[in-house]
């Protein structure tokens, strides 16, 4: 067995291992990988997402066991300091010696820090590793605590802008300082750069061009940049992102040939000056160039694997440097000869729209036959198509400007027409070098049956992800051409969609999760995705509460309460329409006092009691039920509240009794289980004090009846409900709502709110009207009957629980002790309490 040692554990190193592991000859080799960073290879391309809440594990290139599972020895936090080419061994920083048959240098690059006076000052960082980002974050927090807010990024290239975005995400004012007279000088022309600059400035970043820094101001910590033109910029922090330097130290010391400006010299086979040593990625100097992009790095990894295992792949003569990415919210793409550098005669076609912040340029050969390159700013949706036309030398339309302006008049169609018209050799994913032919054949020979399958077996779309729309189109088109329906399984245990499961449970009358899993699933035990889904479906179909088969309920449904930060629960009794008597209000207060609960009025016009231990829940509910309260289902994927304004009962503007109708609706739909939570609102006039249009269903009283709005929500993606019917009476409102909610419950995806469901409904609102109002599908009566059953069979599940000794057994923290969890600690907050903060 031959030994291959890989020095470096970045993206290209991982790709090398991945490609090696996929090779037929893999079992003849033993791979040993050394990385000096303390973690497995991660995605540096998306590094700025680290400040968006992604963890290093989210960014990791592989799962925790990947190396072990593939029998590859991974040494992290180990730096190789010496190569002995004569003995064919390497030594790490501790002096341990390892021998190799082949050595692969994937040492990558380090951030280039220009020799400016004062770069050693406190508050100066580079942007390269997760550790760099962590250190920057700590410093930024310290600055903010001191009321300091200004941070500069040195370098207006691709990485510099990424770094500026990261700095902005840290909550600081970001200044981009660039030596050249334009941003991204290597990829963009002046017009594109100007457009990018104005987009970036509109996001609140400052751009300083043609600025050369002479020294950094400040004593111990940086206080500003002094430019050579005698101007200055006062900043409290500096992130240097002025380029990269290949890591060639260890190669240089063992006598391998390196370039005058750094980089390990390799030939087209990725061999260094020693035939047993290869160099790949950003440390390799190929064609006298360092390629700082992922796609060529991955190609190098492939070539090296092949060369070691006896294949004959070599790097192509010309290497594609096309890029498509999103920088600070702005789409940027450049491909081919974007800067008119080729010797060919070129005609430029430029479209510039300052109003919308869009700049598009294509370079066409003088004879009008070939697309040579281009730049897209602000809208890169045509990048994939343009790139295909460019890289496959496809014929251009009669009027090549249509490529960026779209066909004006005449038939509408994509630039490419049908994705299936692309040649089989067309490269769809340039990061992973995946062709159209490979994607289609993965489906045709049964290796993949959906987009996720195609991605996992071809790796297409796992790099920058820009090709995903095209991969999806190709997958769906290929499936269609094979007559296969596109699958929508809910999880690894079921290939069926929620809608299919609904029908199956309804027809077969299943009442146990095991029956569904055994007869229609893929075996195993189920999981946290399919269990609560099937629990919800059974509750809807059989008009049951969440107390049936409690082990498959979502844990909030299992304890009929919302779990809070410290493992205690909140208690929310129903207060229909927000109307409550003084007696009940007093009772709520007395109960909250008795159990020492934190009390707050919620956004949904009711009162939330926090801090109940699992043992206390039934006691609290017994008291609440004795005072006439019932469950508010705040813990369920079910109706929460119907918010109302006071309406014509009191309000001098009110057109109708919004409170009365709101109470009626809340009592009608309480307890029903749905794909997601449902909220309603009823306003007594067009002033809309109940914010009904931000709810799943909303009513506004107008002259002559109610206007009914459907499919709104607040949340992460707020959406106003759409006007569905006008001036209808109470009875019609209920008829339409019964049909609408039941139709939603039957057909939506798991955890899909009405807004998202409605938005994706083919045919949109018009189709919905046809189904609900005109009964086009002939199901209106079924829908109404199903809803009536649910309404008639309503039971308060907390009343059910406190009266059933079997159910009550659930509410103990320990199965073998009556004690409570001693781990729960509260601290005072204003005049109440809160959980001890997380450390």
């Amino acid at each position, binding site marked *: 067995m031959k030994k291959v040692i890989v020095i470096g554990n970045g993206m290209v190193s991982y790709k090398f291992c991945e490609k090696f592991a996929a090779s037929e000859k893999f079992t003849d080799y033993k791979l040993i990988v050394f990385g000096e960073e303390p973690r497995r290879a991660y995605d540096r391309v998306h590094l700025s997402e680290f400040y968006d809440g992604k963890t290093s594990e989210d960014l990791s290139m592989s799962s925790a066991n990947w190396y072990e599972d593939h029998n590859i020895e991974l040494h992290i936090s180990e730096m190789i300091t010496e190569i002995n080419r004569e003995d064919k061994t390497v030594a790490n920083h501790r002096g341990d010696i390892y021998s190799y048959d082949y050595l692969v240098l994937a040492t990558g690059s380090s951030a280039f820090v220009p020799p400016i006076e004062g770069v050693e000052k406190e508050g100066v960082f580079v942007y390269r590793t997760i550790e760099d980002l962590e250190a920057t974050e700590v410093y930024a927090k310290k600055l903010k605590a001191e009321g300091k807010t200004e941070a500069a990024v040195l370098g207006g290239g691709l990485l510099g802008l990424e770094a500026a975005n990261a700095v902005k995400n840290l909550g600081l004012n970001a200044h981009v300082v660039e030596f050249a007279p334009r941003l991204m000088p290597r990829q963009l022309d002046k017009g594109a750069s100007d457009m990018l600059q104005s987009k970036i400035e509109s996001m609140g970043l400052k751009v300083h061009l043609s600025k050369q820094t002479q020294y950094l101001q400040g004593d111990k910590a940086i206080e500003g940049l002094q430019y050579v033109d005698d101007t200055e910029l006062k900043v409290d922090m500096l992130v240097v992102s002025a380029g990269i330097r290949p890591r060639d130290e260890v190669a240089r010391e063992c006598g391998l040939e390196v370039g005058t400006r750094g980089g390990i010299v390799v030939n087209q086979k990725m061999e260094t000056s020693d035939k047993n040593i290869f160099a790949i990625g950003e440390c390799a100097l190929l064609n006298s160039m360092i390629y700082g992009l992922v796609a060529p790095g991955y190609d190098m990894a492939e070539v090296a694997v092949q060369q070691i295992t006896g294949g004959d792949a070599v790097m192509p003569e010309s290497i594609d440097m096309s890029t498509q990415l999103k920088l600070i919210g702005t789409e940027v793409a450049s491909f081919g000869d974007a800067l008119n550098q080729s010797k060919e005669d070129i005609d430029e076609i430029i479209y510039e729209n300052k109003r919308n912040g869009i700049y598009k340029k294509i370079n066409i050969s003088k004879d009008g036959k070939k697309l040579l390159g281009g730049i897209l700013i602000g809208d890169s949706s045509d990048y994939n198509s343009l790139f295909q036309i460019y890289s496959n030398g496809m014929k251009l339309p009669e009027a090549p400007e249509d490529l960026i302006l779209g066909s004006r008049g005449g038939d509408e169609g994509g630039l490419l027409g049908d994705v299936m018209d692309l040649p089989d050799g067309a490269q769809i994913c340039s990061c992973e070098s995946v062709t159209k032919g490979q994607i289609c054949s993965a489906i045709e020979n049964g290796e993949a049956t959906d987009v996720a399958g195609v991605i996992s077996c071809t790796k297409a779309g796992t790099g920058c992800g820009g090709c995903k729309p095209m991969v999806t189109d190709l997958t769906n088109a290929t499936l269609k051409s094979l007559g296969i329906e596109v699958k929508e399984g809910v999880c690894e245990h079921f290939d069926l969609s929620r809608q299919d499961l609904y029908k199956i449970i309804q027809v077969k009358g299943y009442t146990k*999760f095991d029956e569904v899993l055994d007869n229609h699933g893929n075996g195993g035990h*189920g999981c946290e995705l399919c269990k609560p889904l099937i629990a919800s479906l059974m509750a809807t179909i059989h008009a049951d509460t969440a107390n049936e088969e409690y082990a498959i309920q979502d844990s909030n449904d299992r304890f009929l309460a919302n*779990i809070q930060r410290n493992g205690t629960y909140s208690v929310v009794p129903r207060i229909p329409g927000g109307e409550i008597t003084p007696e009940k209000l007093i009772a709520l207060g007395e109960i909250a006092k008795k159990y020492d609960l934190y009390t707050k009025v919620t956004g949904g016009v009711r009162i939330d009691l926090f801090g109940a231990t699992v043992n206390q829940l039934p006691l609290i509910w017994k008291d609440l039920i004795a005072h006439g309260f019932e469950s508010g289902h705040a813990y369920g994927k079910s109706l929460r509240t119907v918010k109302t304004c006071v309406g014509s009962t009191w309000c001098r503007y009110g057109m109708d009794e919004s409170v009365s109708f709101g109470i009626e609706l809340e009592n009608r739909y309480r307890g029903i289980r749905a794909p997601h939570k449902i909220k309603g609102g009823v306003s007594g006039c067009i002033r809309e004090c109940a914010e009904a249009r931000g709810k799943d269903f909303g009513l506004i009283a107008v002259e002559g009846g109610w206007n009914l709005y459907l499919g709104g929500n607040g949340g992460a993606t707020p959406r106003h409900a759409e006007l569905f019917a006008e001036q209808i009476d109470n009875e019609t409102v209920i008829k339409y709502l019964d049909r609408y909610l039941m139709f939603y419950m039957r057909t939506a995806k798991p955890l899909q709110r009405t807004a998202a469901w409605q938005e994706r409904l083919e045919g949109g609102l018009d189709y919905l009207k046809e189904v609900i109002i005109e009964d086009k599908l002939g199901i209106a009566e079924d829908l109404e009957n199903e809803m009536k059953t649910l309404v008639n069979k309503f039971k308060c599940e907390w009343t059910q629980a406190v009266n059933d000794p079997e159910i009550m057994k659930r509410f103990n923290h*320990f199965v073998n002790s009556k004690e409570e969890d001693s*781990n729960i600690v509260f601290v005072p907050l204003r005049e109440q309490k809160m959980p001890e903060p997380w450390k």
Partner: protein
Amino acid sequence: MEEILNKYRTIKLEDVNVWFKAASIKAFPKDGGACVKYKDLQIAVFNFERANKWYACQNLSPEKNEMVLSRGMIGDHNGIPKIACPLHKKTFSLETGENLNGDLPPIAIYPVKIENENVFIGFEE
């Protein structure tokens, strides 16, 4: 908090020298879990009735150090038995304790045996 975390460590079957009788098997839900108190430890015990197997782990979720794992949903991922924390649905293998969908530290796993319809948890003291 460190202190609490350090109290839990995986016990291998061969190292068990104390079998603690927790409760009757009837006290545990089918295909679900419950929490057992042993001295000052909280151990989550799960009954995988479909496979007639039992597993035990620390009740402490390593994400935010809350005593909640026993209240989570059980299931499997590619055949690996797992528990999903009820707070943010972080899942852990009940065979190795490893976090299956993130980079949280592994949880401690304890051996379980069933004798005369009683559940015993193995400790090393």
